[in-house]
């Protein structure tokens, strides 16, 4: 294994040598590739929809798409109008103008619904049915206004949907088209008969950009009506998705520059050289741009999960350069010219940098098997980014060093040990001197953290990501409290036969479900509204019976039901298309409920499902809609987490064995890497931080990151141990040589993830805090636990050089590349 390692090291040395000789060719090639990939950036898209969490073949999404194909969008843009003086003629007048303007100007519109066009069927006299809108013209007198209010009271279909039960809110619902069709190529082509293929071509569901476009137009229109005695609130999934996208864009715009600023500060302080700042910066910038370019080519959108990538790549990518430049500058100081220095630095650090890139990449690659689609996408693109950063480092760094001048280094001066070295010396003595005590202390920490881990819970409440003052959050809260809610659960009842909905027994059961479901209360979730075809029939039946309240029932015979449906169809309303399929085989019960944590919906929907199974034993019942999507997302979290964590652990452990080259060291080293993760979950348990879209990523990402330090440590330790035969001496040399780089890269990582605490969306705040903490814990484990474990496992082979080192006779600055490369350890 050691021979393989040496061969690999020489490969990296030869690469650096080749690059140095062909520096201009290398620079030109890299520049060309980077520019080409950068050219793809305008094609990047953003997707913050709930559907983006699902793979295309996920049964939950398939059911949802089928539903949307049949009935259109279930989620609507809610505009709540809160008039200062109640539902007055002036208010209705404003509402009419707003309604009509929305109809005229909102793109991708299916329909606008409000009290203005709520369809009513009512009796007039003995023999006349009036089919009309609730009111088409604004009331001019108090009496007319009173009539409208009375009519609203008479039609329960609209309460808690288009008007709040306390009559303080009027609601305008904007429903977008579910599927956006490409324009017909040519007008006359529409006369041609369709084939299914032709119909499907270019067909797409409403995407994020279109959703945002709708949101922007609506808000622009509504802004004109502000300040007229009406307060406006916005809610509903489309408004929420647009708000999320805005948050995402804000966070990207803030965090990427902050990350670069952090890197600049760290590099300037650490290297105190312009080249030490510019080169790593160029490398990570190129890697980031190229990764985004590849995303654009692969049509991978920017999602909430993707948000971690830019800062992650920046801080991880810069670590590669730091490790090589640290050695490079040290060799310069030792008197080597820049060519030999860079070649030997790449030869020396290339392999561990490659190995750490691999482990980080595999930690991220574990997401590929995630059931959450946007996490799976991250599993492809993030490892690609990490490996790109490695390649840029290996090829671009020597080329830059070769082309541009490097300030000569001041010669090394012998003297007393620095503070850092004294600290490392102290650490060595404690950990290798009392390994058992140190290990037991860590064991105790791990046990305590493990106990706290049992308190961790799952959660998905994207609304809580928004600041409390955000317009959508405020609007959602208002509508959840005052109106029926803002989240739809769609219950699809399939009778299994054409005209099955003509069966009065089935319709009565649907009607009963509509009355009983609002009484269910689980975790304070209570439906504010349930609508089905039974409501339309009851209204029509009442109108046919002189508006007698006793006739507000489902008709008693299938003939009457069929004929009343004909009547309703003939009334000019197309409302039925939203409540049943065209063959009256499938009916829809729409349940409107408040927005809350998805995990809580599980129990609520489970209760409804149990009820529906009893209520519709002979029918097929499917649950879909946004509430079902939310539940599906939560389930995906759990399975995704299990899959990615197991994969990351197994693969990274195997990689550690291979990279370290010793079977017993690999699993042992993982102890030092697992404990920080257990500690993180312990903190989550104590602080009640749930596992959600972002925190679910922590485990695998941390594992991929923290093993990097362990690899660097063990890589050096193995050499030193072979050289000195003493654990203490080997640990000391390891810390003297790589300790600074480990601390610096860890601090850079930590700082990089702390940047997330500035995010607009709160989900990134905890993510940043947890990963930053994990990195620090891992650094502590590498410095304080790993040496103790090594001391427990390894015994001393030889002692003389160790004694020298312990006495500080061989300072770390005297490290000789030549000595190591020639394998002449007696030097």
């Amino acid at each position, binding site marked *: 294994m050691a021979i393989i390692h040496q061969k690999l090291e020489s490969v990296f040395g030869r690469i650096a040598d080749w690059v140095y000789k062909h520096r201009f060719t290398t620079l030109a090639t890299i520049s060309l590739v980077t520019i080409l990939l950068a050219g793809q950036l305008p094609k990047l898209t953003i997707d913050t929809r709930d559907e983006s969490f699902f793979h295309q073949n996920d049964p939950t999404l398939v059911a949802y798409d089928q539903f949307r194909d049949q009935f259109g969008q279930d989620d609507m843009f809610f505009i709540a109008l809160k008039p200062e003086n109640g539902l007055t003629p002036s208010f209705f007048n404003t509402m009419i103008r707003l309604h009509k303007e929305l109809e005229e100007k909102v793109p991708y519109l299916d329909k606008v619904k409000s009290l203005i066009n709520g369809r009513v069927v009512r009796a007039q006299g003995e023999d006349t049915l009036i089919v009309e809108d609730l009111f088409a013209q604004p009331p001019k007198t108090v009496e007319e206004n009173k009539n409208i209010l009375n009519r609203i009271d008479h039609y329960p279909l609209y309460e808690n949907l288009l008007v709040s039960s306390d009559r303080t809110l009027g609601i305008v619902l904007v429903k977008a088209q579910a599927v956006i069709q490409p324009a017909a190529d040519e007008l006359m082509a529409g006369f041609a008969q369709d084939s299914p293929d032709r119909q499907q*071509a270019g067909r797409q569901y409403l995407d994020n950009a279109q959703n945002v476009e709708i949101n922007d137009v609506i808000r622009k229109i509504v802004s004109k009506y502000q300040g007229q005695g009406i307060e406006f609130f916005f809610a509903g999934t489309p408004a929420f998705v647009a708000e999320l996208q805005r948050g995402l864009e804000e966070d990207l715009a803030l965090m990427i520059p902050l990350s670069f600023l952090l890197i600049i500060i760290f590099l300037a302080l650490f290297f105190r050289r312009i080249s030490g700042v510019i080169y790593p910066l160029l490398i990570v910038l190129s890697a980031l741009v190229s990764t985004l370019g590849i995303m654009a080519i692969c049509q991978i959108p920017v999602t909430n999960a993707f948000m971690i990538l830019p800062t992650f790549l920046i801080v991880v990518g810069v670590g590669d350069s730091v490790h090589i430049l640290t050695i490079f500058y040290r060799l310069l100081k030792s008197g080597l010219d820049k060519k030999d220095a860079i070649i030997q630095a790449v030869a020396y650090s290339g392999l561990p940098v490659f190995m750490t890139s691999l482990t980080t990449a595999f930690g991220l690659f574990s997401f590929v098997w995630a059931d959450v689609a946007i996490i799976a996408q991250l599993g492809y693109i993030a490892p690609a980014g990490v490996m790109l950063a490695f390649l840029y480092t290996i090829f671009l760094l020597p080329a830059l060093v070769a082309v541009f001048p490097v300030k000569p280094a001041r010669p090394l001066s012998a003297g007393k040990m620095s503070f850092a070295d004294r600290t490392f010396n102290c650490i060595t003595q404690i950990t290798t001197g009392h390994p058992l005590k140190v290990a037991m202390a860590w064991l105790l920490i791990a046990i305590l953290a493990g106990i706290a881990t049992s308190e961790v819970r799952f959660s998905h409440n994207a609304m809580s990501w928004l600041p409390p003052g955000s317009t959508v959050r405020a609007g959602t809260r208002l509508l959840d409290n005052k109106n029926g809610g803002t989240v739809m659960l769609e219950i699809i009842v399939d009778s299994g036969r054409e005209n099955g909905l003509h069966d009065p027994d089935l319709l009565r059961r649907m009607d009963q479900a509509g009355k009983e479901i609002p009484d269910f209360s689980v975790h304070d979730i209570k439906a504010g509204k349930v609508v089905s075809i039974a409501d339309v029939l009851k209204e029509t039946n009442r109108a046919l019976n002189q508006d007698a309240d006793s006739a507000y029932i489902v008709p008693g015979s299938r003939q009457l039901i069929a004929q009343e449906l004909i009547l309703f169809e003939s009334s000019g309303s197309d409302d039925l298309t939203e409540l049943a399929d065209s063959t009256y085989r499938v009916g829809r019960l729409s349940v409107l409920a408040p927005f809350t944590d998805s995990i809580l919906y599980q129990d609520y929907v489970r209760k409804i499902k149990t009820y529906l199974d009893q209520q519709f034993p002979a029918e097929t019942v499917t649950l879909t809609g946004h509430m079902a999507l939310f539940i599906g997302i939560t389930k995906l979290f759990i399975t995704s987490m299990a899959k990615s964590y197991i994969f990351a652990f197994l693969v990274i452990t195997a990689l550690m064995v291979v990279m370290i080259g010793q079977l017993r060291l690999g699993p042992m080293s993982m102890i030092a890497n697992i404990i920080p993760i257990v500690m993180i979950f312990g903190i989550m348990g104590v602080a009640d931080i749930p596992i959600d879209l972002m925190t679910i990523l922590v485990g695998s990402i941390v594992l991929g990151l923290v093993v990097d330090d362990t690899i660097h440590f063990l890589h050096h330790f193995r050499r030193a141990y072979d050289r000195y035969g003493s654990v203490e001496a080997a640990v000391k040399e390891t810390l003297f040589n790589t300790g600074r780089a480990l601390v610096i890269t860890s601090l850079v990582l930590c700082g990089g993830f702390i940047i997330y605490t500035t995010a607009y969306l709160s989900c990134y705040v905890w993510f940043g805090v947890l990963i930053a903490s994990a990195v620090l814990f891992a650094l502590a484990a590498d410095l304080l636990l790993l040496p103790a474990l090594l001391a427990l496992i390894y015994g001393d082979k030889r002692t003389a050089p160790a004694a020298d080192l312990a006495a500080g006779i061989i300072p770390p600055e005297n490290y000789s590349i030549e000595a190591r490369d020639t394998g002449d350890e007696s030097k």
Partner: protein
Amino acid sequence: MKNISINSLFWPGVFLIALLISAPSLAWAEDAAARAIMERVDARDDGDNRTADMEMILTDRYGHQRVRRIASFSKDKGPDTMHLMFFLHPADVKDTAFLSIDYDDPERDDDQWLYLPALRKTKRIATSDKSGSFMGSDMNYSDMTDRELNHYTYHFFEKGREQVFNGVKTWAIWAIPRSKKIVEENGYEKELVFVRQDNHVIIRSIAWVENSQDLKYMMVNRLEKIDGIWVATDLQITRKKGKQTVHKTSLKLTQVRFNQKLDESFFSIRQMEKGI
């Protein structure tokens, strides 16, 4: 001004006169030649006292079909037109009857009655909105009633005033509603109609549905001359969103006869309740 009568071609007549609004369109100058053609369409003999059996096949986007069979009767009463329809199929709606009187006076709402045999009641349906779907089909009420020529401006299709379909030459003419009110009443923003040059029958049309991306394509599949009157006995109306068919209605007329003995008293509530 004589109305275009729906009796002549029945359903096609419907689409004949399309409507349309839109501010820019109001600025379009009327083309005298186009209007003259539409006047010839309007003046064509559409027959009277007609009886027919109608089969309406409604197909949704998934190919699910519903079939309705209807016996239809129509008669002119002065400038007004009376229609009486009895549902024959499916069984649940058999004997359900629909009576309407289409008044020539544009200011007067049409009268409509529906007889529900299960309830043994006839109800008058009062609505001024003709833009809703007619009995679940892809036609709306405006398609069933006559339209005033003066409600529209006409001009030729800018991409070619002549269009040929299956070797048959047509005039391609825009029918643009003169006011927003007409658009709202009838549900179409504008319509492009194709008038056969040899007999002045509209054999195809495209209607722009108000407040929607949808287009309705009407296509006459079979045109027959019955008792000297051109009748579209097979036509199809397809509602499309972009390239996708949203819904489709196929109408077939059989047993079409004109000049039958239909008394005015036949078009009555009593007859609806009595059945045929």
